[in-house]
């Protein structure tokens, strides 16, 4: 993979007042207007004036277009905009956060003062250390060939209608298609002297066919089951998905599942397709390596982790074939940025190397507590939420060989493809996934189609049974937009790359 490197200017905080609003960015147009900078500066200054030892302000504008069609009808056609500013402060060792939808100095000041009052009322005593960060000015913009907002809504509707028309089948009761486009502009200023200007552009799409007959219901989706897939890219990404091309296959497979045998219960070898591997990585590696979960701050809702901070560098997570990388520089990843929402530059770091835990996903605060790293995984859902430790792009690195080779080495087993259900315990140990489709593997070849497949395991045992990952030619990255965490709840947009992988002695066919 090629790596995109963020250009930054490194400045001392003493120079902050002399900063020009635009850093070294390769010359692309300025993303945010001067008014946003003025608002952010007013928020930071007001917070510091009210006693904050640290403050940051994020001004965000977000534009989302959503198109969804179902059975020849336009179901969803939305153009949504939202804007506002969020101010985060540290007062007496306590965090505070408040937001305001006015993108003005007055709105920012009001938010800052409310955030300080809330922090003071929280009554936390003591200091809260943050990992050191050089003051930076910089900017980042998603590279796109065709701006997804330059494609008319009418053309987006037409694409969806064509794709679902190609899914017509006598057993398919519901054919649906969707596309989306998102643009988020944000300006970040902090009392440490950061000034960061970013514009992230996403788009994506997908199709689903739902078949039903005689009380049976089955579904097939492409490219994934989670309202399609998205990428930080231009409209060329959506065109490259080939929704129309794949539609008839998706419909035929949904119908065929109605007549398929149920996946039997067994302990067997499984070969898991790249799409399902992405969710496996997300749930059983991504979330447990979020350091805030390790330290317990998400215990009430999302849960904690089976990992301890002291496991770093020594815990055997899986077999030697397991290599996981957190990479916020991956081209087209939904977790790609120039800087995270604390102003930490994008980076590529190992999380698991040859089966051993080598890294956590961190914030400046959790990195300081760990005494290692500098953060870089703090992300907020829009302007009205505090940043949390979130995945960026988390990948299973490829091994070697083709999917066909992986299967050819299996005498008896199950091939599992496209997520259907997902659940994992609060420490991220016991998981159970279901897939839309499975196929029997016999004598090294794919056999009959199977429906209602599930598999279950315990995270380190399961990853310990990994005996081969397919090569770079099979490696696929998909972006998900529905990762939930936090109270109040936040959605994160993350990407995962994976190749198909093979695991031995896995329980499949869990019955109710």
């Amino acid at each position, binding site marked *: 993979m090629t790596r995109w490197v963020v250009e930054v200017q490194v400045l001392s905080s003493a120079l902050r007042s002399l900063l020009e609003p635009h850093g070294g960015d390769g010359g692309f147009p300025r993303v945010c207007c001067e008014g946003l900078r003025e608002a952010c500066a007013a928020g930071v200054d007001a917070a510091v004036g009210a006693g904050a030892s640290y403050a940051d302000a994020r001004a965000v504008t977000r534009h989302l277009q959503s198109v*969804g069609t*179902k059975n020849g*009808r*336009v179901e*969803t*056609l*939305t*153009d*949504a*905009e*939202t*804007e*506002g500013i969020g101010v985060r402060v540290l007062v007496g060792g*306590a*965090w505070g*956060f*408040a*937001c305001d*939808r006015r993108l003005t100095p007055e709105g920012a000041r009001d938010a800052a003062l*409310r955030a300080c009052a*809330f922090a003071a*009322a*929280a009554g*936390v005593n003591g200091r809260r250390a943050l990992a050191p960060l050089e003051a930076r000015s910089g900017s980042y913009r998603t590279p796109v060939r065709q701006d997804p907002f330059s494609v008319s*809504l009418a053309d*987006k*509707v037409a694409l969806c209608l064509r794709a679902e028309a190609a899914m017509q089948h006598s057993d398919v*009761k*519901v054919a649906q298609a969707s596309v989306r486009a998102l643009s988020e502009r944000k300006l970040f200023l902090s009392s440490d002297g950061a000034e960061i200007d970013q514009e992230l552009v996403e788009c994506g799409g997908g199709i689903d066919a*739902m078949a*039903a007959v005689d*009380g049976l*219901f089955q579904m097939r989706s492409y490219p994934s089951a989670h309202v399609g897939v998205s990428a930080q890219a231009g409209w060329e990404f959506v065109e490259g998905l080939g929704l129309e091309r794949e539609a008839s296959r998706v419909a035929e497979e949904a119908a065929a599942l109605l007549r398929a045998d149920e996946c039997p219960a067994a302990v067997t070898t499984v070969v898991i397709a790249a799409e399902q591997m992405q969710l496996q990585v997300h749930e059983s590696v991504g979330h447990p390596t979020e350091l805030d979960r390790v330290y*317990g*701050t998400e*215990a*009430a*809702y999302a*849960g*904690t982790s*089976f990992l301890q901070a002291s496991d770093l560098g020594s815990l055997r997570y899986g077999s030697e074939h397991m290599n996981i990388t957190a990479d916020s520089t991956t081209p087209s990843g939904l977790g790609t940025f120039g800087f995270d929402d604390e102003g930490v530059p994008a980076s590529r770091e190992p999380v698991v190397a040859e089966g051993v835990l080598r890294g956590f996903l961190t914030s400046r605060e959790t990195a300081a507590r760990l005494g290692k790293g500098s953060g870089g995984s703090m992300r907020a859902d829009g302007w*009205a939420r*505090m940043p949390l430790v979130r995945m960026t792009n988390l990948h299973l690195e490829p091994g070697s060989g083709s999917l066909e080779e992986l299967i050819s080495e299996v005498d008896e087993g199950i091939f599992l493809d496209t997520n259907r*259900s*997902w*659940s*994992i*315990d*609060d420490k991220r*140990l*016991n998981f*159970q996934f*279901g897939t839309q489709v499975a196929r029997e593997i016999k004598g090294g070849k794919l056999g009959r189609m199977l429906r*209602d497949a*599930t598999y279950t395991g315990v995270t380190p045992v399961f990853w310990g049974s990994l005996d081969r990952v397919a090569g770079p030619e099979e490696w696929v990255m998909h972006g998900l937009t529905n990762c939930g965490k936090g*109270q*109040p709840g936040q959605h994160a947009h993350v990407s995962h790359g994976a190749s198909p992988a093979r695991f031995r002695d896995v329980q499949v066919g*869990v*019955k*109710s």
Partner: protein
Amino acid sequence: MDALAIAERALALASGDEAEVVVGTERSGFARYAGSEVHQPTLIENAGVQLRLLRDGRAGLATTNRTDDEGLAELARRAADVVASASENPDLPPLASPASFPEIDGYDEETASLGAEDQARLAAAAIGASGDLDLYGYFTSGVCELAIASTTGLRASQRTTDATCLALAAGDGASGYAERTAWRAGEIDPAEVAEEAAGKAARTRGAQEAGPARYRAVLDPYAIAELLYYFSFDSLNGLALLEERSFFAGRIGEQVFDPQVTLVDDALDPSGLPAAFDFEGTPKQHVTLVEEGVIRGPVWDRATAARAGRESTGHALPAASRAFGPVPTAVTMAAGKAESVEELAELVGDGIYVTRLHYLSVVSPHEGVITGMTRDGTFRIRDGKIAEPLVNLRFTVSVPDLLADVPGLTRATQLVNESDFYDDRWAYGYRVPALATACFNVTGAGSGPGL
């Protein structure tokens, strides 16, 4: 902010054959705590405006949170562009007509007036009552207004308040859970919530394994509410019925569940989180979903009701989520006669007792099969008594099987918050008793209680 006034201004700028404006405002605070200190306090103020235009059988939606004249004018321009891009939809129902709306409770001045200092104080009251264990969770309160104005002459507006205290008392090898939610914050005693969580946690040390098996079980209200909420996504949803993925498909009028099982959706119930109308401006109806074990039907919004030849029951979701279909958000499960969970344990005899569920997922919508984990208080029941603590258990249950044989339910019911406060604030919850079942299918074991 006067939400209806904003809606009127936006409507005046709209140009379409029909136009509908939905305005939602929010002022809220979250004093979120972990390790017995407030670590993520969040104050939110926002106002969202949605303009939906219908023109020549086409529909389009635009939204903004700018409520100045320029922002609303821009909204009208964008909505006009959107509707011009739509294709004709012969199934598109017209906008809701003016209606008289029921008088509801649901707004409390004292709750509305709570500010950051109050939220921090109430969080501190919970933290101070968790004893030797650290507390995790939050105290939140908010005031919201929902207003709808349309070219049909419909005008609707309601102000509501809500408050929730959520407490996980936890330490090494021990954790217990409790929560309270109400539209009057004064009904919530944060210390009592923390004490319940800490008391439950103290009983979870030394958790044992339990093997996969079909157990008899007692589920606390926290657990049964969560299970019913996930079951509602497909099986209590009129769209899912039309699309044949609801368990109710082909079974309406059949006796499927235990005669003790009655489920209604009643947003007018003052003991819940009341609402007078849905996000299309349809008055909320009292809907019987299951009556003494007999399936009566799902809930409907305007689009699905039109397809089914029925009337909307007032269950339209916000426009951004409407493709999901209508979902009941104020389900009440009829109470039983048991005086306590301990009495239900006597009815079960031998089985397990479950406090709370975690990370549910629908495995098979048509069969109502759901998987998930238990957490923060799972126990063995032996000889009719709640006995030793258990590790967190994976379950894969058919909800219809679970409700088919119900030895008992408690007389007391509890309102359980089912909104996780994603996106715009909208509090809703299910009021349920604790329930005993003859069929709770455990398919694996996970981590122990505690951090």
